[in-house]
């Protein structure tokens, strides 16, 4: 990446934008839009833990007639038990975000060290670990998560673990691949030739270079985990049926859809899509900013 000041960059972007159809700098927009959504959702989740007054109504109480269509009193209408859907969406972020963050963190904590060590040491160990990881990777992730969630049962921790197992190989493969290529770099060779121990090379020379792409994949993984959690809840493998949960609310609203009651399924789904989109945009945009080679394409 060439060193440019922010002003120069903006100028260049504007001239290009005005000059023709070519769109440069879109990755910055993607990242920014994604970051706004991410910060908003995370802020909302934290706030919803801290105060019971974030939403207009109690998300778990009957506050109106069942199936009131969206109105000014209930922005997104009420569900089959007369609970306010808008409030449920605000508080539903808790479960989704807990599961998404926990599971992505779990897979990162397992996948990254494993990939670092396996790629760095190589040999028989690397072969065995890679084979296991590739086997899991080749398997349909959602189906594995479904089976695991069915086994482990409900609860934030269990569902997070079920989802995390699916994404460990993604971190592993990413990190291992990068370690393999970084190992060949001249500066690693130099460090080795002046007698730096393997531990130092791995943590001080290789690890820092892996971080950027891990951040990108972490963000994309959260998006994936949000959708997977919703999918699990939709087939009845939810975290906690008594708590507001977007996927589970869709599952319940689904049976009432026939009468044209569109609001109990539509709004939680929009929430899932918006949040997943936010994390995806953030991750995608970031990956292009961090990886200039991709931008040349």
């Amino acid at each position, binding site marked *: 990446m060439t060193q440019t000041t922010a002003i120069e960059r903006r100028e260049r972007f504007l001239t290009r934008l005005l000059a023709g159809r070519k769109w440069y700098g879109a990755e910055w927009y993607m990242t920014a839009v994604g970051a706004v959504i991410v910060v908003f959702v995370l802020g909302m989740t934290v706030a919803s833990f801290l105060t019971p007054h974030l939403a207009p109504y109690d998300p778990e109480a009957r506050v109106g007639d069942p199936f009131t269509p969206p109105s000014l009193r209930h922005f997104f209408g009420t569900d089959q038990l007369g609970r306010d859907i808008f409030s449920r969406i605000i508080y539903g972020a808790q479960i989704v975000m807990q599961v998404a963050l926990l599971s992505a963190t779990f897979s990162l904590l397992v996948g990254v060290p494993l990939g670092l060590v396996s790629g760095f040491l190589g040999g028989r160990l690397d072969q065995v670990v890679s084979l296991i990881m590739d086997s899991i990777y*080749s398997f349909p992730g*959602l*189906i594995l998560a479904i*089976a695991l969630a069915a*086994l482990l049962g409900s609860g934030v921790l269990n569902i997070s673990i079920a989802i995390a197992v699916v994404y460990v190989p993604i971190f592993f493969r990413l990190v291992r691949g990068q370690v393999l290529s970084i190992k060949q770099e001249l500066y690693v060779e130099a460090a080795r030739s002046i007698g730096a121990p393997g531990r130092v090379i791995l943590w001080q020379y290789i690890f820092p270079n892996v971080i950027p792409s891990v951040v990108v994949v972490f963000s994309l993984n959260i998006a994936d985990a949000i959708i997977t959690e919703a999918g699990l809840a939709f*087939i009845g493998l939810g975290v906690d049926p008594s708590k507001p949960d977007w996927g589970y609310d869709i599952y319940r609203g689904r049976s009432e859809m026939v009468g*044209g009651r569109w609001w109990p*399924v539509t709004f939680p*789904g929009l929430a899932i899509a918006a949040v997943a989109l936010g994390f995806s945009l953030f991750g995608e945009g970031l990956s292009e900013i961090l990886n200039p080679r991709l931008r040349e394409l």
Partner: protein
Amino acid sequence: MRSLRAYIITRFLLTIPMILILLILVFILLRIMPGDPVRAAMRPGVPEEYLDQIRHAQGLDRPLVINLRGSWATAAEPVVVLYTEHDPTSPPVMLALEGERLSITDRYTEGDQDWVRVSVEEGDTLWVEEEKLSWLRQVEFHYTPIEGETPPAVVVGIWVRVVLHQGGVEGWAPADQFHITINPLDSQFFNYLWGLITRFDLGRSITLRGRPVATDLALKFPATVELSIFGMLVAGLVGIFSGAFAAQKRRSAADYGLRIYSIVAYAVPIFWLGLMFQLIFGVGLGWFPVADRVSTPLRPDTIAQVYGLHRVLTGPLGEKVLAFTDFLSNFYILNCLVTGQWASLLNVLYHLVLPSLTLGLYLSGIFTRLTRANMLDVLQQDFVMAARARGIREKTVVYRHALLNAFIPILTMFGLQFALLLAGAVLTETTFNWPGMGLFLVDRIIDRDFPAIQGTVVFFALLVAGVSLIVDIVYARVDPRVRY
């Protein structure tokens, strides 16, 4: 250069450890579960005898990996009395006569005590205590009494000689009254592996009364395949053309628009997309059906029914052919085309519209991306420049010369997305009540029927491994550069 055959063999051999690891993983996962899978699938209050029968039928009474306690017990004394507990004062259950072979389900060793618990199999003949028999009748124990045999005089009690048709009964006896056959491989793990390899045995369901999972999957398989093919078709059409277009107009507003589309398509939960389609086109406009594969009155007749194959195909071989045509008949579209049931065909296609659109649009985002990336590669190659230099129109260069050349890698990428397709199919089937393998899996999960879940997951694993093997071989066949 190495031959194609060498490549195929190597690729095939590499698939084996992968499948083995998956099988082991699935096995470990389903066994570390806390609690008893049989009890989990049954209502509370089911008699212990019935649970024992199911455990025995499922093979869950074997040790996990290595069986050192013995797998068969042959009675070594003229009459062996089997008790309810490992205690000679507990009530007797049945008698084993010398030479009768029973299967060992448990062993109790403490101090100088050594007892085995044995079970009779379906088809065995046995002496049962009358009182016990009247109790067993209530737990799916089906038998025919044999008249006119006198029980061995050594034991007191009223004994009935019966032939067992269904169910089973277990009892304890001291181990020294039997010759015990030890087969270390008669364990849950090796039985599962061996059954899978030799008989394609995917296990039996608990809640569907011991029905083989493979039977059910064979019934559901065609529905999933039909949905997947049409989903792929939608995804392919949308993905390839939008991807090629994006590559052609690289870095234009349209390119970024399509990139955003591909991200959005992936971020939208597939089941929610399906529900939105149902709301708009089903509930709202009433254009398309929202559930099932076909309207019941129009369910296509099987191929055998249409051509009257029942009369022609008889005997054991005929039965097999008939079963196969029934399997094929469940591919409704194929069936309707072959037998000319046009009204049914239309109805089936009509039912396919919304589910395949849902699955297809979900996958199309990724296909757009893959096509775009591959097209960008191809567009940089010399032959494209040469084509342009010859003055061929840009459209022809992109959509004929480049796209056709990008097709092979694109097709392989489609193959690689097969796992994603299956995952998407599970949720699509749930949303549209589509009677395929995904819905079967979800139903089994709701029933907490773990052996059936295991069988289904294993089948999915085999399917994915098989498809990726085939895709790689086809790719190697088409592209001679691919060799080990």
